């Protein structure tokens, strides 16, 4: 048993840390962050950040060197996540490109596709979004209804996608559509590399309960894709999607480290905030709550490390990732809910009027409702754990 990082990993950490200190905007570390006029200003900022990452060789560390990556080890990816969380680094605007499209194309893309897309993903010149979810296919992706009909070397695509993050600024979309209506469920789905800049594609913002606009609806009205924009085989998109899931070796690490950070910030808040001149943490009821949260957030971090150890040994992640996702998302929601409650009535003060020095509690609280839904609801995670880890019977309809 060994919880240390190797000298090489620590060296990697130091290199990244130095780079971040030098390249993050003035005052970012420990200062003000993420105040944008609107989502387009935000996107522009994130694009420029990705260009910096690209220039510094930090945009896609797990990629092969020949595509501009560092061939980072899994442990280096963990270090990367830890450091990015530590400085609250800006989001990766081309997350879909770097974690989904790039790796997929490297593995099963044609030579032309690799040449055409990969470098532009890395540089952020082309930002990607994903077109998976549909209004009637939330947790159940096999129910996808968007259809693509062949017409010469073209495919005519009609349907609607939802929950397309960065759809309003994306240049291209990693889209799944049904190409065969006779096959049932998982069969007959094809993956397209769709150009977003065409008349048949229209995006509409989804405003979230926290007032932000990260997601979009995408309406496809005779949108066009070409044969050369198909990934893998026609009707075999399900395999592409499944293969994709394997690329995410490091799993939910970022969220686990963020939870750890939020817990520490919560401790700081309970020491700072006072009720009748006594720090909240001196209240035995609040202290008990905090120890429960400490215990469980430590538990989720240690569970994650234990699963990581398995991944390191097996060379690939197992279904345990669902346990990490379930635990960290539910616990994050609970911690953030408590963070509002213990502020008393002042906890409802929002944005610039928030009382805590960390003014993001309210936004994080509202955002956390999405975390137990997006990426597979907690209910879906429980089914996965029950069926794949415990061997319990499959659910109705699956």
């Amino acid at each position: 048993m060994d919880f240390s990082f190797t000298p090489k990993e620590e060296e990697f950490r130091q290199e990244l840390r130095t780079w971040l200190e030098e390249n993050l905007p003035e005052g970012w570390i420990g200062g003000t962050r993420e105040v944008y006029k609107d989502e387009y200003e935000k996107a522009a900022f994130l694009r420029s950040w990705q260009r910096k990452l690209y220039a510094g060789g930090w945009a896609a560390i797990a990629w092969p060197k020949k595509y501009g990556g560092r061939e980072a080890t899994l442990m280096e990816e963990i270090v990367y996540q830890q450091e990015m969380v530590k400085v609250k680094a800006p989001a990766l605007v081309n997350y879909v490109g770097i974690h989904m499209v790039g790796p997929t194309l490297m593995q099963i893309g044609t030579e032309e596709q690799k040449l055409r897309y990969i470098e532009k993903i890395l540089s952020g010149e082309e930002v990607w979004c994903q077109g998976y979810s549909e209004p009637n296919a939330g947790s159940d992706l096999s129910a996808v209804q968007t259809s693509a009909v062949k017409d010469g070397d073209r495919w005519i695509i009609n349907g609607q996608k939802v929950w397309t993050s960065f759809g309003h600024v994306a240049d291209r979309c990693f889209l799944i559509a049904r190409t065969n209506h006779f096959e049932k469920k998982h069969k007959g789905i094809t993956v397209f590399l769709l150009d977003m800049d065409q008349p048949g594609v229209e995006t509409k913002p989804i405003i979230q309960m926290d007032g932000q606009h990260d997601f979009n609806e995408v309406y496809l009205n005779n949108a066009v894709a070409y044969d050369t924009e198909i990934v893998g085989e026609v009707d075999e998109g399900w395999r592409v999607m499944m293969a994709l899931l394997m690329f995410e070796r490091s799993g939910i690490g970022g969220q686990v480290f963020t939870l750890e950070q939020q817990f520490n910030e919560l401790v700081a808040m309970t020491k700072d905030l006072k009720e009748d001149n006594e720090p909240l943490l001196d209240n035995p009821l609040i202290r008990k709550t905090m120890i429960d949260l400490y215990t469980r957030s430590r538990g989720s971090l240690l569970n994650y490390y234990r699963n990581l150890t398995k991944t390191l040994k097996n060379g690939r992640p197992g279904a345990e990732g669902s346990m990490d996702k379930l635990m960290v998302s539910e616990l994050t929601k609970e911690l953030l809910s408590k963070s509002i409650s213990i502020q008393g009535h002042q906890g409802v003060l929002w944005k610039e009027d928030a009382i805590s020095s960390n003014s993001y509690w309210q936004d994080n609280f509202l955002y956390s409702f999405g975390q137990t839904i997006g990426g597979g609801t907690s209910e879906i995670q429980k089914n996965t754990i029950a069926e794949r880890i415990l061997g319990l019977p499959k659910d109705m309809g699956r």
Partner: protein
Amino acid sequence: MDFSLNQEQEMFRGYVRKYLDSVGQTKTAREYIKGDRESLQSLQTGLAELGCCSINISENYGGMGLGALDLVPVLEETGRALLPGLYLETNALAVPLLEKFGTEEQKEKYLPNISNGTSFFSIAWLEPGGSYHPAGITFTAEIEKDQLNLNGVKTLVPDAELADHFIVLVRTSNGKDKDGISLLIIDRSEANLTMRAQKNMDETRQLAQLTCTNTEISMTQILGPLHQGWDALQEGLLSFNAALCAVIVGAMEKVVEMATEYAKIREQFGQPIGRFQAIKHRIVDMKMDLETARSLAYYANWALDSDAEDCIQAISCARLFATEAFARISDHNIQIHGGIGFTEEMDCHLYVKRARFYENYLGTTEQYYNQAAAALGWLDNKASKVLV
């Protein structure tokens, strides 16, 4: 034994429901968020015409002279629609305080206007620091002959922009404990107040910070005993909290309905999701929370009307359960709706945010635990931090 609202009460609910249906239930709240004040104004007029504002005001002052239980169905309906505005604060806090502690002049000045729906009260209690304890009151009202000289800052004053009058907790004599605290009615039209809006996570309610600098006001504006306003306020809060529970029950009922209806129509894996026990049983838990909150709320209002022996613990426990259960089931409701529940477009989040607004409103959860414990005789004298 008859534990139910009576026919008249349920009939009155019917009128209010019908009216609020006709104006689109939460539509008014959504327009209010967007800055439209007229819809709310017109809705308040409508409710006043139905008689909602006069229920618990004495007949002498133009009211119906009814009790807390008669207010319950109306409050439930306002909760269901997430009504913005000060109906609760006015009719369930200001009215009981005026009825019990108001001078004849005060009653005549305020009650008829409340009764006809043209006057609303807000309450200014918290100050920067955010404590509901007596020590939190540092806003001074210095007595100078028959005038008071006001200096201080009040925060989180609810819907200040809609209020004609404010009940303000002030220090009329030095000290840190409850002695020396008085209640004061400030008429917006007669005092020089500086107001600054504060952003509220529950955007259906507006908050403001209110500052007085050498503001002069007449001594006649003191409500209840001079220096002993704290105890008067506690009595008013019993009415307020019993009423708050009814508001919450109305909101919870709607939340359970939303979850149930969605679970019947939304399909995943070829099944309505209400067939999956993870969803189905969770909705049952929500329903149980709703019915328990309702039983406790109705009883609390009955206890208030009947001056029952267990009145205080009945009200504080009803409030504790209702605020916690409302937050719990509103959270569940989003999860049941999945992605769509996370959008601004659906009403789900409005209930989540309102639940948070009520959680520690006019007293924290912990203070109400202490209030209940004291009422049950479970607090030794060492324990100091009790609301009552």
